[in-house]
């Protein structure tokens, strides 16, 4: 019995491996296209081995116009918004995690409700509103909106991480006369370093890839982040240089993939909706 079970298990493992590899191959094809084309001097739209391996595509796009300015804009936008998000989320999570209040639960439920709203839907009114208050086409306006749209999830995530830090350590500091701000900055945040980095990286990655928000709120080409400027390859340059488009995609995507790998283990299985499932 045991033997048949284990041999059955082995054959089942082989079947599972084969199935997964088939899915993996299907998922990998579009990814293979971008990598191969970026190195191909005659890149087309189909996956094929490069005609001649070349770094020419990268050479062609690594100029300040095509790559450096948009990436810098992305960095300013996403960096600024992430900073704002993390600071506000850490401050907001502290009383929610530390003190009992009748308002905590309604507040947290509202936040949870807001995390899953389709933000895309409000971009048209946001545009109209930004025109009224003169925030349209400004970096700071876009940063504020980015931060606000990411905040509900960031607060929720931050609060869950903060709940994991035992309260006793702060109580000692309080008796020594530390204010709650001091104990937050000196004790709680250092203890939940990994949690803070997850919130930071996750917010950054979400914004880095976001297209619609800067597409709507920024108008001047000089201010466009990479997510919008990538459209240029299709628009004004006439014939589409697919090799260069692929090279740009690689350059633009690499930072977020690396950042994700950095925090992947902490997000891991327990990520499951950022602890939303845990309540």
């Amino acid at each position, binding site marked *: 019995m045991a033997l048949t079970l284990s041999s059955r298990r082995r054959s089942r493992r082989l079947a599972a491996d084969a199935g997964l590899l088939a*899915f993996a191959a299907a998922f990998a*094809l579009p990814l293979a296209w971008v990598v191969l084309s970026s190195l191909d001097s005659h890149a087309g739209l189909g996956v094929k081995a490069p005609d001649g391996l070349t770094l020419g595509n990268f050479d062609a796009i690594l100029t300040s116009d095509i790559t450096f300015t948009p990436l810098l804009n992305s960095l300013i936008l996403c960096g600024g918004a992430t900073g704002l998000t993390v600071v506000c989320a850490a401050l907001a999570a502290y009383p929610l995690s530390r003190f009992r209040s009748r308002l905590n639960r309604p507040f947290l439920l509202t936040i949870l409700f807001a995390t899953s709203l389709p933000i895309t839907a409000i971009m048209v009114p946001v545009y109209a509103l930004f025109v009224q208050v003169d925030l349209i086409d400004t970096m700071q306006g876009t940063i504020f*909106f980015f931060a606000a749209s990411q905040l509900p999830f960031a607060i929720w995530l931050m609060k869950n991480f903060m709940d994991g830090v035992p309260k006793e350590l702060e109580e000692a500091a309080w008796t020594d006369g530390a204010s709650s701000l001091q104990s937050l900055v000196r004790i709680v945040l250092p203890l939940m370093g990994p949690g803070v980095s997850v919130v930071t990286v996750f917010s950054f990655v979400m914004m880095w890839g976001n297209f619609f928000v800067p597409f709507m709120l920024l108008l001047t080409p000089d201010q466009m982040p990479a997510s919008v400027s990538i459209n240029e390859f299709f628009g004004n340059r006439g014939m589409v240089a697919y090799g260069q488009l692929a090279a740009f995609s690689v350059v633009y995507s690499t930072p977020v993939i690396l950042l994700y790998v950095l925090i992947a283990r902490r997000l891991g299985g327990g990520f499951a909706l950022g602890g*939303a499932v845990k309540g």
Partner: protein
Amino acid sequence: MTTAAPQATGPGAAKSPSGPPPSPPDAPGVPLRRSLVRALPVSPALVLLLLFLAGPIVYCVWIAFTDLQLTGQAESSFVGLENFRTAFQDEEFLNAVWLTLVFTVISSLIGQNTLGLALASLMRRASKPVRTLTGGIVITAWVLPEVVAGFLLYAFFRREGTLNAILDWLHLPSQNWLFTLPILAVSFANVWRGTAFSMLVYSAALNEIPQEVTEAAEVDGAGGWRRMWHITLPMIRRSIGTNLMLNTLQTLSVFGLIWVMTRGGPGDKSQTLPLFMYEQAFQNSMIGYGTAVALLLLLVGSLFSLIYLRLLRTEV
């Protein structure tokens, strides 16, 4: 949608930024003053949320009832339900509703959800290197910026693209997918991009099923499908519920992916509600009408969001 604003202003009233300076949490004082001080750190987040999230939502509700246009910003007047009446008589709008439904059902309900579950359960039996490789590839598709994902799948589905090359190689008929079946192409694109999330959710859920339960069933001679149907699925039904809700919400708000691949075309054959909203507001300069569509989208989203909260609550 209106629920967000009042609830958010509730605590907001108690947390005005001009409170007393921070003091140790256990400082003596009247309870009200103490809770004000304690709530003070919430205020920066609250101000941001009220100004940039709740504000636009309230504004959305307002301009959905006006005839605000892009040209001649200054004059707009209250038109009541006119925008909504127009919408439900507008064939393009109904077309967008239908396409959104198709897009959501194919890509989120069927595609991401089922494929995510299939991948997660295969992974439990597969060997570690295969598991790591597949997980890595599927998650990379998820982490890629939206626009990049759009381009990759544009290249995949184009006439000269990879899919047709494979079909040719198999001697199957090829066609211009983005032209003949655009909604199917963008749905597959969304599956490609979004399955990783379901895979992660279901991997976590399956890991929580005690090994003994499935082993016992296996010894009793229950086959794979029966175990799946009678044991696994009932045990992870909460995860299925929350995952379906989140997938649907995610899919309702997809814009960039479709925009890059088809611009909603050809004609309006892949124009889902977000793209329709954009077209009405900016190409046709009718912000009021576009916002009315946005409000409907937001209402549907809030409904799903509320169901999602209920699902969570039964377990919290």
